[in-house]
């Protein structure tokens, strides 16, 4: 799950890192009051209004606005009406502006190849780090390590090739150590500071936070439970509660299968046959007939569907169990759209017989089934 900037900022504070002064609110009056108080000694001071939406590239999409106190109210209200990368803005972080000397980049991510954490530092921050890496790989310092100890010596040595004017290297190492503690302490997949600002007084200030928490680690961090489901659609929430893996897509062919790889492959095959998947839905291994009914209920609650395609490879999952769930659902509910089932593996014969007896088009071949649903929807 991706945290919003202000949630990451709160973690930075908790782990002892310096951040710009700021105030989170959806209320422009409260925010302005905070800004006025903060500007007591200097009424010409300007602020950054930062839309609190999860995900990157916010700056490029107009999600960050510079404002003076005079037009604060107007800018705040306008930002609140915006839609940033498909997200509605419901909170704004008002942040004091820092006198920037240099903008740096520091992050820890998981290197999927070496299967270790990877620290990235660049003397050229404030921009998209992928662009920096493309232009000049030397400007990006990479250090891999394990959880046992922070690789201070290695990190320090790697900084020798970087321009470190404008800040103290020991201060940078201090920030890096705190980020390392945060990364493991919060079970992060990504903990990124961009920009890490060296201000004109030489202080290092973590001015933006991009944090991704590992969803699998929620059992250690109950405080993230609500955050982990807030981006879910109604169907995704329902599926999550029932232990189904469901992803909303924008097509009109509902899809159910067992196993992530097979469901992906089913979406692919449907698309290659000119169809448009409405969802990804994996009932997992060993699904019961009740689970199958629940899955049907969820995928079919979407509007404007044209058909449904079910693809089961029975390993631990039993085909007759799936067929029972299907038939029981269809007896209770008039779905009104074509349904095609592919079913093979454990107890395939019993499953197919039950479906055919109840007039459900069922095949043991993946290819024949996808051809059939494609033909039915072309009519």
């Amino acid at each position: 799950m991706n945290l919003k900037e202000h949630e990451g900022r709160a973690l930075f504070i908790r782990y002892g890192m310096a951040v710009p002064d700021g105030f989170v609110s959806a209320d422009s009056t409260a925010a302005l009051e905070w800004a006025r108080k903060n500007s007591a000694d200097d009424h010409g001071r300007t602020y950054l209004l930062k839309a609190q939406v999860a995900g990157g590239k916010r700056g490029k999409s107009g999600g960050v606005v510079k404002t003076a106190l005079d037009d604060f109210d107007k800018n705040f209200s306008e930002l609140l009406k915006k839609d940033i990368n498909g997200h509605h803005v419901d909170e704004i972080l008002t942040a004091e502006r820092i006198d920037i000397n240099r903008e740096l980049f520091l992050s820890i991510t998981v290197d999927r190849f070496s299967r270790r954490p990877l620290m990235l530092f660049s003397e050229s921050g404030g921009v998209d780090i992928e662009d920096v890496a493309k232009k000049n790989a030397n400007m990006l310092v990479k250090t891999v390590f394990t959880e046992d100890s922070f690789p201070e010596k290695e990190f320090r040595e790697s900084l020798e090739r970087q321009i470190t004017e404008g800040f103290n290297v020991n201060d940078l190492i201090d920030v890096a150590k705190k980020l390392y503690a945060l990364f493991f302490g919060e079970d992060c997949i990504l903990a990124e500071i961009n920009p890490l600002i060296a201000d004109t007084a030489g202080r290092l200030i973590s001015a933006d936070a991009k944090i991704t928490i590992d969803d699998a680690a929620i059992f250690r961090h109950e405080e993230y439970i609500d955050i982990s489901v807030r981006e879910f659609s109604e169907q995704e929430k329902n599926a999550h509660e029932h232990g189904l893996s469901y992803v909303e897509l924008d097509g009109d062919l509902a899809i159910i299968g067992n196993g992530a790889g097979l469901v992906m492959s089913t979406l692919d095959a449907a698309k290659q046959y000119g169809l448009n998947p409405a969802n990804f839905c994996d009932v997992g291994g060993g699904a019961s007939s009740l689970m199958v009914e629940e899955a049907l209920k969820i995928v079919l609650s979407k509007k404007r569907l044209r058909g449904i395609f079910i693809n089961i490879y029975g390993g631990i999952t039993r085909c007759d169990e799936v067929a029972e769930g299907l038939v029981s659902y269809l007896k209770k509910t008039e779905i009104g759209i074509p349904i095609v089932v592919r079913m093979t593996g454990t107890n395939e014969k019993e499953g197919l017989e039950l479906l055919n007896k109840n007039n459900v088009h069922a095949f043991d071949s993946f290819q024949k089934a996808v051809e059939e649903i494609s033909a039915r929807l072309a009519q």
Partner: protein
Amino acid sequence: MSIIVDDKTKVIVQGITGEQGKFHTGLMMEYGTKIVSGVTPGKGGQSVNGVPVFNSVSESLKFSPADFSAIFVPAPKALGAAMESLDAGLNLVIITEHIPVRDTMAIVAKAKSKGLIVIGPNCPGVITPGECKIGIMPGHIFTRGNVGIVSRSGTLTYEIVDNLSKNNFGQSTVVGIGGDFINGINYIETLEKFQRDEETKIIVLIGEIGGEAEERAAEYIKNNVTKPVVAYIAGRAAPEGKTMGHAGAIISGSSGSYDSKVSVLKSAGVEVVDFPWEMAKALEKFFLPQNFGIRN
């Protein structure tokens, strides 16, 4: 010959008294896997399918030595269970889903330092048909032969194995490396073993979107693998930024896309099929099932 496991491999099951552990211990034994003992803390003295249960791995190893531990314990306790077996010198097959990345990183680091193999997490396991199955695959669809398979997905592997077995392409060993964000044994480490294995004449690689593992594998194949490789990659219809069931199956920005993987694999000389049911046909180009030689 085969890789990783054979008829001499001795296995303990951690989490043997749980529902999944119990069920699959029975199926593994039915398949012929040598399950020597089980471990569940606090349940020592019981037995499951005639297999004695111990409180700890070290106690179980005093009863009988073993090579592998199959881990079925729930995610919150998987780290402890895995570390216990690695400390005792056992290789691992981790079936458990939803293990935090931080825990998997610690498990992999420990295994590397001890020179041990970790298969998974979140995987169907490993099978050498007719000799040994550690995991949850439906044993009856596998047949013995000369195709080595390495895959990130369970049911998709069964789908393709089914297609191969029905067309007389048996398998030497099938390794499910798992669908998580990071895994233990990876494509390259498995390809290296298949390349050395005399029984394996051709390799099938089953991949999916997300990460760069297929791209890295392609680079390795180009420089090190002389046997033919045929691949299938799932996820061409997946949108960017959404996790497709497997934690590892997510396209972020330009990284991990279907097109990138397929183009790199093709440029490494790997044949890529469009649909899983085309696998056997694609293998026939290199190798007829009735004679164990490579055509051309």
